[in-house]
């Protein structure tokens, strides 16, 4: 063994190999520490409410905290949801965007609160027939105050939260902040009037593009490429962030957002009254 070492080191090529190969090998090893960039995907395929929002916020945080996640694509198919959860998602997305680009890919629908979230992204891609928009707020006015024999409270609006008029007036600042979010998100790209946006119309993807509500028509793959381009990465990997952030493949439905009808099917109405950035299809606008 000693002879072999002496013989090898005494070889005329031994020193050059040592000086060349060793740094190269170490360099290769070190380079492997450089992570392959990942474009993470977050799926919003539900209404926006406490559970769906909680899941997605966890994924936003995961992307925020993990450097290998270089960009995020949010795939949307949602009619919107509660105002508070929509705002929570929107603000988490804005926080993430401070570090990483976010691209939204709209599948069938990004209505109301979902579009609120979409305008917080760097880039919005939709299908030509995706339904986009429905900017606005909705609620059901409470009943006129009444008193009951057995069900008692300490104030006239304890049961109702406020008068009908006050509840109606609450909608306006929410509508204004929604519109400001759209204006801030779309900026100069917005090519239509505030009145048209605030009318609450749903636009198909191609029309939404013409009006500047979205940036492009395209596929999920194009959304990934756009996100990678914005992050200045290539040869990237893609990951569904849900299993990474939550350890589960699919959302566990703890408490559904929508009311179930007597036959067990899902109605488009939320389970509880409240203030919503939510689109409810006209044909289903019927209390079960």
């Amino acid at each position, binding site marked *: 063994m000693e002879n072999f070492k002496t013989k090898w080191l005494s070889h005329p090529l031994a020193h050059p190999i040592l*000086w*060349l190969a*060793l*740094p*190269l090998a*170490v*360099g*290769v090893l*070190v*380079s*492997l520490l*450089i992570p*392959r*960039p990942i474009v993470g995907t977050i799926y919003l395929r539900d209404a926006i409410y406490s559970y769906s929002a909680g899941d997605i916020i966890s994924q936003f945080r995961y992307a925020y905290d993990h450097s290998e996640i*270089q*960009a995020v694509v949010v795939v949307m198919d949602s009619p919107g949801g509660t105002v508070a959860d929509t*705002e929570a998602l*929107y*603000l988490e997305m*804005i926080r993430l*965007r*401070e*570090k*990483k*680009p976010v691209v939204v890919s709209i599948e069938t629908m990004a209505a109301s609160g979902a579009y609120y979230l979409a305008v*917080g992204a760097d880039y919005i891609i939709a299908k030509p027939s995706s339904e986009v928009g429905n900017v606005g707020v909705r609620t059901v006015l409470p009943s006129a105050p009444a008193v009951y024999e057995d069900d008692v409270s300490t104030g006239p609006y304890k049961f109702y939260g406020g008068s009908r*008029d*006050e509840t*109606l*007036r*609450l*909608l*306006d*600042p*929410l509508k*204004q*902040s*929604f519109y*400001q*979010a759209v204006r*801030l998100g779309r900026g100069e790209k917005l090519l239509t009037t*505030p*009145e048209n946006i*605030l*009318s609450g119309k749903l636009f198909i993807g191609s029309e939404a593009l013409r009006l500047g509500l979205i940036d492009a028509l395209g596929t999920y793959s194009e959304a990934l490429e756009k996100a990678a381009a*914005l*992050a*200045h*990465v*290539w*040869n*990237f990997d893609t990951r569904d962030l849900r299993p990474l952030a939550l350890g589960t493949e699919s959302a566990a439905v703890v408490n559904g957002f929508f009311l179930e009808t007597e036959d067990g099917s899902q109605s488009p109405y939320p389970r509880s009254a409240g203030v919503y950035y939510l689109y409810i299809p006209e044909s289903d*606008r*019927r209390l079960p």
Partner: protein
Amino acid sequence: MKRYRIPIAVALFLLPVLARTVWFYQGIFWRAETPATPDYGAYVIPQPPLSTSVAAAESAPSRAIILLDQAHANMFSPSELESLTGILHARGARVESVALGSYDARTLADQLKYASAYISVCPIAAYSTAEIQLLQDFVRRGGRLLILTDPTRSAVTYDYYGYGSATVMADVIAANSLLAPYDIAFVDDYLYNMSVYEGNYRNVFFTDFSANPLTKDLTKVVLYASHSLKTGSGTVLIQSSRSTKSSRTDSDGAYAVAAVDSGANVLAIGDLTFLQPPYNQVADNAILIRHIADFLLEAPRIRDLKDFPFLFQREVAIVPMSDIPLSADLLGPIQALQQELAGAGIASAMSPGVLAGKDLILLATFSSPGIGDYLSPLGIRLPSQASFPSARAYPQIEIPGFGSVPASGIGLILFSRTDTRSTLILLAEDSSSLTELLGVIGPQGFSNCVLQGIAAVCGLAGGFGDFSNSWWQPYGVGTDEPSFDGTSTPMPAG
């Protein structure tokens, strides 16, 4: 060579690192500015404009009765009209419901006899042709019609057993059937304004008013989801700014929301919500509501004999003229007349003479002394007293609108109203004819009588005044006087 070893080694070390870096990264993502978010704290809940404070004008007390339609599936609760009915009550008026299935047997026709105005709010069930005609006649005689609709008060029915389709029954359909004779029609829409509104896009400011007592002192009113309306011959009272849109077309325009007909007796407004608290106190809405109350209370209601027994506003003195003996035959019909009046809530009492502060029912014959003083203001000319009781001479009575009427076999019922008194005169040839004349008065009005405004000419069974003999020739087809053989029509036995 040795001195290059270290740089070469370093280069070789960096080479794979750089290669991998370049393989994956084209550059560094860098955002210069934090993405902006809405300034949530800057948005405030809009508050309604304060109402204009205007002292209520002194108004004369009223005894008007206002009918409130609740017989046409009206989509409202009477409490929603309290801002209006409160004023009406405060001014002495009474608001009475017109309801289906009521224990009150009064029909709409009966109620319209004593009413000054009729309010219909968001009717869904159709009005019958008879009802429309009754209300037309009511308006023709100075009654006032207020029709309020509201786009939020449509009735929606669902086909639960089929595809779940919804059918919307708008209130404008029934309302328009009432308004059609007056050239006013509501549009099945709602108005909105996306740029200038009161708290919500469907709450529209109105500042364009035409000169009218109903719009006096108005500078701005707010209607809370309103139908627009159209009128040809009527007067638009309140009109939107041009930035307001109709949901029917989503196009801008100056839309009318309130109008009166050409006779100024029919008022149509496309909103109900402005009457409800707190909206009745917004801008000049309270003033508008007060004007609406005035409109209802100041109906130039023309009372005529069709309105019997609701011709009187206070207690009535029944006064037989001096030539009328209060015989047993007469007392019975007089008592029936008093019952009829009592049923209408009008107290009455026999009196030997006219009493100040009371209305009057005068029982008289054509030859009663002093009767001419009552008749001449009505334009009625009696034959000279010398011609009575000679019925064969066929003395003629001149009655405006009727022409010459033979005095024999008929009775006259005449009504006059002055500032001081309402007077009903029952006039016949003699005491027994007067008894018969009292008998034509019944719950359904006057039987066997031709009514024309303030006069009714009644055929009496004891004379030849049966209209089948037709002394009355409205078309001028005959001028011969009817023959009279001096015998009375036989009365049924018993």
